[in-house]
Each structure stands twice: as structure tokens, then as C-alpha cells.
């Protein structure tokens, strides 16, 4: 009986410790969100989304240029990075022992651990230094370079989770390998690939360092990828390090907008790829 009591207590202690770990893990996230809302929400109004910044000292204005810049650059980065990343991931999953796949996997792991500022410097030498001007496209290229290894590795891992029996079932129906891979294997793990892609998009949408040397930032509305371009993280950086209280408020509000943009992107992609069925296998 005594042992039973001790066992119950042991269970309670362990469950308590795990709940504690969850609270500690979630607390910073809630604190960040709470601070952002508390400090930034007050400065957000319609003008903040639709207007351009005003000179220091004046009140009002907005970050429309940075919202457009982030959407454009992240969009182009996605157009470049997602197909390459997903394609490379599929190759590595289909030909796991291939020499090229082994090398690609290793390079991707190294790239995933590379500080993003290094990638910014690389994009600078590759594009900005050659063209002799900063550009939104150089920013997109830098962001794409960050996305590719992330997306590639998650795609490969997701495909590997699909049971081999499903692949065999499709092949036994006479499916060619490409059809098996696309309409059965990739189709089955598509939600996982979408999640991986979203994480990559969310990650690069918040990247500042690779844009410093590439897109540079701008005070004006620029929709030309060949010109320097504003972005939300760059705007946060500029305003947060500025000397005025007004700027700090704008920085908080911009950070909140950045999080909302990521949230909206995630929701849209989720709705677009919603599963018709509950997938339980």
C-alpha cells in the first residue's frame, strides 16, 4: 500500500515537472506577444498600413512601404526557394543512397547552421557587388538561400515518414515511379511539406541580417525589385535603434505587424491545402 502511495506521488511529481517545462517553454512566447500588443497596438491604425513614414518629429504615417517590401521579397524568395527546396528534398528521399543526395544533405545541414548574416554577405558579393547597387531581388535571393536547405530537409523527412507499404501499393497498381511519388507519397505528406514551407517562410520574413547588405531598406514605396526595398524587420531595426520615443513606438507596432503578416500567410496556406479527410495513418 505504501508503495502504491509513493508511486502516485512519483507520478504527480513527474507530471508536475512536465507541466512546468511546458509553462517555461510557452511563457516567453506569450510574454513576447503580450509586450508587442501592449506596446505596439496603440500605434496601429488604418493609416499605419496604408501610409508612408513621416519625417521625424511629425506624428502619424505608416509602414506601407515595408509591408509591400516584405510581401514582395518573401514572395519572390518563396517562388525561387520552395520549388528548389521541395524538388531537392524529393530527390534525396527517392534516391537516399545517391552520391549527389548524400552531398546535398550534408551541405544543407551545414547551410542550416550558417548564420544568416553570412548568407547576406554572400548574396552581396554575388549580386549587389556585381550590379553595383542594392536591390529587392538581391534580398529575395538571400532569403531563398536560407529557405532552400530548410525546405529541402523537412520535405525529405516528411516523405520518409510515409509508410513504404503505400508506395508498394501504388507500384503494384502499375503506377510509374513519378506518379507513385507525386500522387501517393508526396500527396500523403503534403500537409507536412506545407508546414515545413510555412516555417521557412515565417523564418525568412523575420530575417534582418541578410537584408542589410542586399535590399538595404528604403523610406519610399518601392515595388521595383531592381531598387533598394524596405522590409518590416529592417524598419523595426531602423526605428528601434533611433533616438526618438516616437520611433520606438513605430518599431513596436511594426514588429506586431510583422507577426500578423506571418500569421495571415500561415492561415491562408493552411486553408488552401486543407485536408478533406482526417488522415490517421
Amino acid at each position, binding site marked *: 500500500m505504501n508503495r502504491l502511495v509513493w508511486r502516485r506521488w512519483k507520478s504527480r511529481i513527474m507530471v508536475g515537472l512536465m507541466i512546468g517545462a511546458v509553462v517555461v517553454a510557452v511563457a516567453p512566447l506569450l510574454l513576447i506577444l503580450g509586450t508587442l500588443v501592449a506596446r505596439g497596438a496603440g500605434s496601429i491604425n488604418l493609416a499605419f498600413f496604408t501610409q508612408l513614414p513621416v519625417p521625424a518629429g511629425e506624428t502619424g504615417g505608416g509602414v506601407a512601404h515595408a509591408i509591400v517590401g516584405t510581401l514582395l521579397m518573401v514572395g519572390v524568395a518563396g517562388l525561387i526557394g520552395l520549388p528548389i527546396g521541395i524538388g531537392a528534398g524529393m530527390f534525396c528521399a527517392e534516391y537516399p543512397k545517391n552520391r549527389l543526395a548524400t552531398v546535398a544533405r550534408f551541405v544543407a545541414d551545414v547551410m542550416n547552421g550558417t548564420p544568416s548574416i553570412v548568407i547576406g554577405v554572400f548574396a552581396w558579393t554575388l549580386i549587389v557587388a556585381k550590379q553595383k547597387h542594392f536591390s529587392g531581388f538581391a534580398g529575395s535571393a538571400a532569403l531563398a538561400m536560407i529557405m532552400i536547405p530548410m525546405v529541402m530537409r523537412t520535405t525529405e523527412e516528411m516523405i520518409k515518414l510515409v*509508410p513504404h*507499404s*503505400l*508506395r*508498394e*501499393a*501504388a*507500384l*503494384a*497498381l*502499375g*503506377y*510509374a515511379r513519378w*506518379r507513385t511519388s507525386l*500522387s*501517393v507519397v508526396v*500527396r*500523403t505528406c*503534403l500537409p507536412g511539406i506545407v508546414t515545413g514551407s510555412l516555417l521557412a517562410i515565417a523564418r525568412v520574413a523575420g530575417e534582418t541580417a541578410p537584408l542589410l547588405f542586399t535590399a538595404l531598406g528604403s523610406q519610399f514605396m518601392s515595388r521595383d525589385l531592381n531598387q533598394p526595398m524596405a522590409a518590416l524587420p529592417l524598419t523595426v531595426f531602423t526605428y528601434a535603434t533611433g533616438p526618438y520615443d516616437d520611433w520606438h513606438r513605430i518599431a513596436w507596432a511594426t514588429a506586431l505587424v510583422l507577426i500578423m503578416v506571418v500569421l495571415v500567410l500561415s492561415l491562408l496556406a493552411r486553408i488552401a491545402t486543407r*485536408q*478533406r*479527410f*482526417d*488522415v*490517421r*495513418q
Partner: protein
Amino acid sequence: MSANSLMTPPTVSLPDTAPPPPFGRELIRATDLTAFYGTFAAVKNVTIGFEANRVHALIGPSGCGKSTFLRTLNRMHEVVGGHVTGRVLLGRDDIYGPRVSLTNLRRRVGMVFQKPTPFPTMSIYQNVAAGLKVGARQSRPEIDAIVERALQQAGLWNEVKDRLRQSAVALSGGQQQRLCIARTIAPEPAVILLDEPTASLDPQGTQRIEELLFNLKKDFTIIIVTHNMQQAARVSDTTTFFYLGTMVETGATKQIFTAPTQERTEAYITGRFG
């Protein structure tokens, strides 16, 4: 009841059907077939023919090569990196011939696996129609008719006819396996290979599948791998015993189970090993 009595097989009941005619039409024949994984020969020099519209059972202990042999008949053995020597004739075609289309071969030789494998992203209807995609384009009414017929033949139509658009993974294990049978027979193959199709099912699900085989052999030639000797005795017309990669004995099921010519066959079916 002594512990030993668990090892004694229960009395084997045989189907009350007439024995197969001695000179049936042979549909598929393996000649001197050896199947390798790398350098290891899992199946050695097997020569055997299978008559059309019969149920043929392959039995033997685990690792005896019966599943591997089955998978050489639709060239699924190559999917796991194996290779074979010897020949397999389907009708008059050498399925290992140089110009064989794997798609066409697997449309003529369908396969059902040990675990039910419905495609989780497809509805019940789409699952059954999945195998039709690789063939000639068919109109919607044609596909509708094929799906209904296949589900009827698989004995699943009445259970799913009102929820064809719903997910296939919501079905029970036994229903999923019958769905896989419907998916396999929808393209009208000549031969159906079943690799322990009832191994993951409960007794009721197993019984449904066994009853099905009885009806399916009117339209198809069936080769079934099973670990369950009573099942082999119940459902099959011929039985082939594999041991250590070689084919020990093949013959009418009744003969194999009552008067095997090989000592190893007798030892296996009476439960003395395996």
C-alpha cells in the same frame, strides 16, 4: 489440456468442392526461377505452373521464400532491390522480357498486401478508381460502373455505397482490406496475388475474405501466401510448400494435406516444425 496440445493442429476441414480438372489451362508459369537479395538466393530454382480460375496457396515457415516468390510474379521483387534469374511466363509473355511494360504487367497481375493499404488522401471511390488512372482514359459513367462492380465483387458495396466520397481510412481493418481487393480487381487483372491478406484481420474479417476468394476465382486466378494452414486447406485448390527457398512439393490441396509425398511437407503440416 497439456501445453503440448496447443502445438497439435486442429482437424483440417477440406472444401466440399469437386477436385480441379486435371488438365486446366495454365495461366502463369515460373521456370527455374531464382530470386536474389544481393548475393543471397531467397528462392532457388523454382519451377511451377498455376492454372487459371483456381486458388493456389503457398505455404511454408517464415523466411522460406514464399512471399519473395509471390513478388517475382509481378516484378515487385525489384522494388526492394532484388533481382531474379529464370523465367516467368504469363500466358505466352515472358514477364522478364526486354520490352515488358511494368505498368501493363501489374495491370494484369494485381497484388494485395498483408496490411491494408488504402491511400489516405483519397476517398473510398477514388481508392477503387486509383488503378484505372494508368490505363486508357475512361468516361465518368464508365468509371462509376467499374467502381460499383469492383466493390460488389469485393463484397463491400452495401457497406460503403452511401459514403463513397468519404475517407477510406475511416473503414475498419477488414473493410479496408476488402477495399484494397476492390482496388486491385477494378482494372480487371488476370491474376491476383495475395500476400497474407488476413494476417492483420480479426476472425470475422478473415472469414469474409476467405468467402470472397471463393467467388473471385470465377473471374480471376488467385495465388495466396498464407501462414495459416487451415486457411490454405479451406480456400485453395492447389497447395505448394516452400522450405528454405526451395519448392518442396506442389499438388492438389487435398493431396498435400492428406497424402503428402515429401516427409518435410508432412512434418510441416502436422506441426512438427515451422
